[in-house]
C-alpha cells in the first residue's frame, strides 16, 4: 500500500542521518526506532547508507589517494583571486554588471557633451578679433562704391568675398589696406531688392588666417 512509497515525513530523513551519526538523545532514538518498525522506505535507506559508508570506511585510504591524485593531476594551482571568483560566481557576476553599467554611464556623461574641435586655438584667436565692416551695411540708397573695415594688427593682406542670395561667389579680391573699391563691372551686377553677403578674412605674412569677419549683408533698396 503506502509503505512502498517514499517516507512522507521530512523530519525523518534528517533524523536518519543523526541516528546514523549517533548524536540523537535516547528519547529521539526510541521515537525513530519506533518509526522504523512501521516505515519500510526508511529501513531501506538506512541499510543503504550503512552499506555505503562502511564500504567507504573500509577503503578510505584509497579514496583519499584518488581524491588527492585528481587534485594534483588535473587542477593547476590557482591564485587566491581566481579561487574567490569561482567560489562566488553570483556575487561577482552581479558586481561586475553594476561596474560595467557605471562605466557606460560615466562614458556617456563625458562624451555626449559637444565634441571639442581640433583646431580650437586658431578659432579662439579668430573669434577674439573679429573684423567689422563699416561700409556697406544694412539698407542702402545708392550702389556701394567702397568697402571699408577696421584695421587689424599683423595683417599682411585681406581677402574679400561677395556672394549673392544663392550663395554663389560673384567677386573675390585681395587688398593690402583696410578698404577696397568695388569695380564698375561688379557694380552693374548689383540689383535692387536683393540681399548680398560680404565676408573678409585677414592673413599674416606666413599665409595663416589671423582673423575672420562674420557674414555681413546689405540690401540695395529704395524703400525705407
Amino acid at each position: 500500500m503506502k509503505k512502498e512509497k517514499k517516507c512522507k515525513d521530512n523530519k525523518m530523513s534528517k533524523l536518519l542521518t543523526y541516528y546514523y551519526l549517533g548524536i540523537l538523545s535516547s528519547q529521539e532514538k526510541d521515537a525513530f526506532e519506533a518509526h522504523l518498525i512501521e516505515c519500510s522506505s526508511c529501513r531501506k535507506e538506512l541499510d543503504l547508507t550503512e552499506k555505503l559508508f562502511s564500504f567507504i570506511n573500509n577503503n578510505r585510504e584509497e579514496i583519499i589517494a584518488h581524491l588527492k591524485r585528481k587534485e594534483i593531476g588535473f587542477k593547476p594551482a590557482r591564485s587566491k583571486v581566481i579561487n574567490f571568483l569561482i567560489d562566488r560566481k553570483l556575487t561577482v557576476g552581479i558586481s561586475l554588471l553594476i561596474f560595467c553599467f557605471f562605466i557606460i554611464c560615466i562614458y556617456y556623461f563625458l562624451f555626449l557633451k559637444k565634441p571639442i574641435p581640433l583646431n580650437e586655438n586658431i578659432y579662439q584667436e579668430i573669434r577674439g578679433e573679429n573684423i567689422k565692416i563699416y561700409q556697406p551695411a544694412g539698407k542702402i540708397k545708392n550702389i556701394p562704391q567702397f568697402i571699408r573695415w577696421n584695421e587689424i594688427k599683423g595683417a599682411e593682406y585681406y581677402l574679400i568675398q561677395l556672394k549673392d542670395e544663392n550663395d554663389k561667389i560673384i567677386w573675390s579680391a585681395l587688398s593690402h589696406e583696410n578698404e577696397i573699391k568695388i569695380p564698375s563691372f561688379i557694380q552693374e551686377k548689383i540689383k535692387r531688392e536683393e540681399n548680398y553677403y560680404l565676408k573678409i578674412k585677414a592673413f599674416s605674412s606666413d599665409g595663416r588666417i589671423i582673423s575672420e569677419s562674420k557674414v555681413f549683408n546689405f540690401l540695395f533698396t529704395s524703400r525705407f
Partner: protein
Amino acid sequence: MREISKQETKLIQGIMNGEKNAEIELIKRFKKGLIWLSKRKVENDQVDDIVQETFKNLFKSIRRGIIKPGIPLKDYIFGIFKKVLAEYIEAKKKDEIIMNKDNSDDFIDKRTPEIEYLRKEKIDLITKCIESLPKKYQEIVVLHYLEGYSVKEISALTNLSIGTICYRLHIGRKKILKKANKKLIFADL
C-alpha cells in the same frame, strides 16, 4: 495519518473480539520491521524468539484492555520490544563468558581478481560522487567520513557550530546516496 489510526482501532477492536484475521493482519504489518530491528541488535539465532515473544505480549495486553485506541500502535510495540530485548541481552551476558568465537576465517584471503576489479570501480564512482558535491559540503564529508574526525573536532577546526556541521553532513549523505543510487553501485556492496 488518520486512515492509519482508523485501521489500527479496527484491528484492536477485532483482536478484543477474538477475530483471527485481525491478528494475522497485525502480524503481517509489523513483522518485517521487527525482524529487521532485532537483527541489528542480536544475533540471527534469537531473532525469531524475540519477535514471537513481542507479539505474544502484545496480544495479551490488548485482550486485557491496556492498549487504548487513539495512540499510535507502533509506540506500544516498540515499548514491548524493548523490554523483551533487555531480558534477552541479560540472559546472553551470562553465556558470553563461555562462548568463544573462532577467528580463523579472518585470516583467509577471499579476494579474487574479479572482486578486486569491481571494488576499484566502486571506489572510482564514489570518489566521483564526493567530488561532485559543493565545496562546503565536500570538506566536511571528507573530514568526517574519510579522515575520521568527530563532529566536535570538526567544529573546533572550522569554527562552525555543531548544528550546521550535522546539517551539512545530512545534505552530503543525501546527495551521495542519490547519485550512487542512479549509478546502481549497490547491487552487491
